[in-house]
C-alpha cells in the first residue's frame, strides 16, 4: 500500500522522458509489441540482406546450373537426413525449377515495400481529405464524406480488382487500388480529430493571434491527430500486405517472374496436393509479416492511447 502512495507523490515531470521517450517506454513494456518489433526487424534485415542470404538469384532457373535438381521437388536439407547426392534446397524448388527459399527471402523486400508504400500513399491522401472535410465543414464535408461512404460500401477486394483492371495488371497498380480502397479509413480518423480539436480554446487562441488557416491546420490540428493515424497505419500495413497478396494470388497484382508471396502461391496453388511446400513457405512468410505488423500495431495502440493507460 505504501508503495502506491509513494508512486503518486513522485513529480510526473521528473520521470517523463518527453512524449516520444514515454511512448517508446510504453511500447517496450508490452510483450506483444516486442514480439512484433522483433519479427519486423528480422524481416527488415532479411529484406536488406536478401542478396547475401539467398542461395541463388530469385529468378534463376536452376535446371542445368545445379546438378540433380528437379521440378517442384520438396525441401532437401542435408543435416536433416536428405541424401548428400541431392542438392541442398531449404524450401525445395518451384514449378519453374527456381529455388523457393531464395524467392521467399527476396519476397520480403517486395512485401515490405508494398506495405509501407501502399499505406503511406493512403495516409497522405486520406489525411488531406479528412483535414479539408473537417476544417471546411458544410457542403465540402458532406460531399467528401459521402464519397468516402460510397468507397467503403464496395467490397474492398472487388473494387480493387475493378481499379486494377482499368489501370492494367501490375504490382504498382494493385498497390494503388488497395491504397484507394483504404483512403476512407484515414480520412475518417483525420476528420474526427479535426472536429474534436477545431473548437478548442488553443485553436481559437491561434486564430485570434492571426495565424493563417493553413498554419492552424498543420501546426495546431494535425499534431493532435497523428497518434490515431500512426496506430491505424501500423495495423493497416498488415492489411495492405494481405490485400495486395490476395490480388497477386488472383493474378491481378505482381506479375511473373516477380518473387511476390501472393503470386508465388497463386501460380502453384494447383500443385497443392503434390507439392504443398510451394504454398506452405510463401504462406508462412505472409502470416509472419502480417502477424508482426498486427502485434506492433496493437502494442502502439495500447501505448499511445492515454485512455488505456492504467
Amino acid at each position: 500500500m505504501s508503495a502506491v502512495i509513494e508512486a503518486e507523490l513522485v513529480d510526473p515531470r521528473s520521470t517523463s522522458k518527453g512524449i516520444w521517450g514515454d511512448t517508446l517506454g510504453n511500447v517496450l513494456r508490452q510483450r506483444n509489441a516486442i514480439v512484433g518489433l522483433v519479427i519486423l526487424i528480422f524481416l527488415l534485415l532479411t529484406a536488406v540482406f536478401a542478396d547475401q542470404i539467398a542461395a541463388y538469384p530469385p529468378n534463376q532457373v536452376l535446371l542445368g546450373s545445379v546438378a540433380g535438381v528437379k521440378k517442384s521437388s520438396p525441401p532437401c536439407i542435408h543435416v536433416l537426413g536428405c541424401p548428400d547426392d541431392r542438392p541442398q534446397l531449404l524450401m525445395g524448388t518451384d514449378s519453374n525449377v527456381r529455388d523457393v527459399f531464395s524467392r521467399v527471402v527476396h519476397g520480403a523486400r517486395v512485401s515490405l515495400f508494398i506495405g509501407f508504400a501502399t499505406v503511406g500513399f493512403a495516409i497522405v491522401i486520406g489525411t488531406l481529405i479528412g483535414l479539408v472535410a473537417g476544417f471546411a465543414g458544410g457542403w465540402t464535408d458532406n460531399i467528401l464524406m459521402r464519397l468516402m461512404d460510397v468507397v467503403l460500401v464496395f467490397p474492398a477486394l472487388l473494387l480493387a480488382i475493378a481499379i486494377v483492371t482499368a489501370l492494367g495488371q501490375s504490382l504498382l497498380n494493385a498497390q494503388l487500388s488497395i491504397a484507394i480502397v483504404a483512403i476512407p479509413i484515414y480520412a475518417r480518423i483525420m476528420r474526427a480529430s479535426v472536429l474534436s480539436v477545431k473548437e478548442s480554446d488553443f485553436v481559437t487562441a491561434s486564430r485570434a493571434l492571426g495565424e493563417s488557416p493553413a498554419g492552424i491546420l498543420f501546426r495546431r490540428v494535425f499534431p493532435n491527430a497523428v497518434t490515431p493515424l500512426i496506430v491505424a497505419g501500423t495495423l493497416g500495413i498488415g492489411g495492405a500486405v494481405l490485400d495486395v497478396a490476395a490480388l497477386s494470388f488472383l493474378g491481378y497484382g505482381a506479375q511473373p517472374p516477380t518473387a511476390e508471396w501472393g503470386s508465388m502461391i497463386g501460380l502453384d496453388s494447383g500443385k497443392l496436393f503434390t507439392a504443398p511446400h510451394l504454398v506452405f513457405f510463401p504462406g508462412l512468410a505472409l502470416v509472419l509479416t502480417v502477424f508482426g505488423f498486427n502485434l506492433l500495431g496493437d502494442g502502439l495502440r495500447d501505448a499511445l492511447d492515454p485512455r488505456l493507460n492504467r
Partner: protein
Amino acid sequence: MLRYIVRRLILTGPVLFGILVLVFFLGHVLPGSACRALLGERATDAVCAAFDHERGLDQPIPVQFGTYLTALSHGDLGTSTKSSQSVGDLLIQRLPVTIELAVAAMLFAVTIGVLLGVISAYKRNSIIDVLTMAGANIGVSIPIFVLGLLLAFVFALLLKGTPFALPPSGRLTPGVSIVPLATSWGLQNALGPPRAIVDFVSNIYTLNALISGQWAVLVDAIRHLILPAIALGTIPLAIIARITRSSLLDVLGLDYVRTARAKGLTERNVVRHHGFPNAMLPVTTIVGLQLGSLFGGAVLTETIFNLSGVGRAVAEAIGSRDFPTIQGFVLVIAIIYLFINLVVDVSYAFLDPRVRLT
C-alpha cells in the same frame, strides 16, 4: 424508431445512387470492349459495331445511364453481355451460394468466437486465455487463400480415408443432385417474383434440403460447406473473440457487477446474467461490419473451393467487361451491406434500452 428507420432508408438513396454512378463510369473507363472480350481480339470493327448497337453500347454514356436507370426502376437489371442471361436470373443462381457461405462462416465465427472470448475473460490470464489470444492474433494474420489451401491439404489429402476427410471443392459430390423446390412443390410453370423467390431459396442447398427433407443431400451439402466456412470465418472469429473478451472484462469491472458479486451470486451467474448480455453490444456491431466485409473475402474463398458465387461472378464479369452484370451485382451487394448496417444500428435499440434512435 420508425422515423429513424425511414430517415436512414432515405439517406441510403444518395449512397446507392453514388455507387451506381461510380460503377457505371468506372465500367466505361475499363480498357477493352465487351465485344472484343467476348468475341476475341480478331472480331472485325463491323461485327463489333453491330454487337454494340444491339446492346445499346454505341449510345453516349449519359444516355446509356438514363436507359439503365429507367429499366432499373422497373426492376430490370439488364442482360449479361457475356451469357445473354438476364442479370436477375444470374443473381438467383449466384447470390444464394455466397449467402449460404457467408451465413455458415458467420455462424462458425460467432459461436466459437463468443465462446472463446467468454472463456478467456472468465479465466483471464489462464493458459486458455493466453492461448486463445495468441491464436486470435495469428487468426487475423492468416490470408484467406493460405488458410483455405492449408485446410484443403489437411482435410482432403492428409485425412483422406478417415472419417474426418472433407471435400475441397464444389457444393455437392459429383453424382449427387438436389431437387429444386419448384419441382418438389409442383411449381414448374409458375412465373414472376414468387417463382424467383422459390428458386432463390431452392439454390440455398442446405435450406432446400432441410425444407424438402432430402437428408442425404443435406449432409453432403454441409460437408462441402465446412472448409470454405472455416476459411472465410476465421478472421471474423478472431476479431469476435478479442472483442468479446475485452468487452466482457470492461463490463465485469463495473459497479453493478460488484453489487451482484456482493449480494453473493456465484461468478458463473454474475458472468451469465449480468456480464454477458451487456458485453454483447460491441460484439453485435462487429458481427454486422464483418458480415458486410465477407463479400470481399468470398472472392478468394470461392476461387479456392471452386464455388460459383457472387464474388467470382463479379471478378469474372470485370474480366469480360460484362457491365450489366457488374452493375447489378455490385448494386445488390451494396444494398445488402447497407441493410445489414441498418439492422445492426436498430438492433442496438432493442439490446440496450438506454439507446434512443433519433
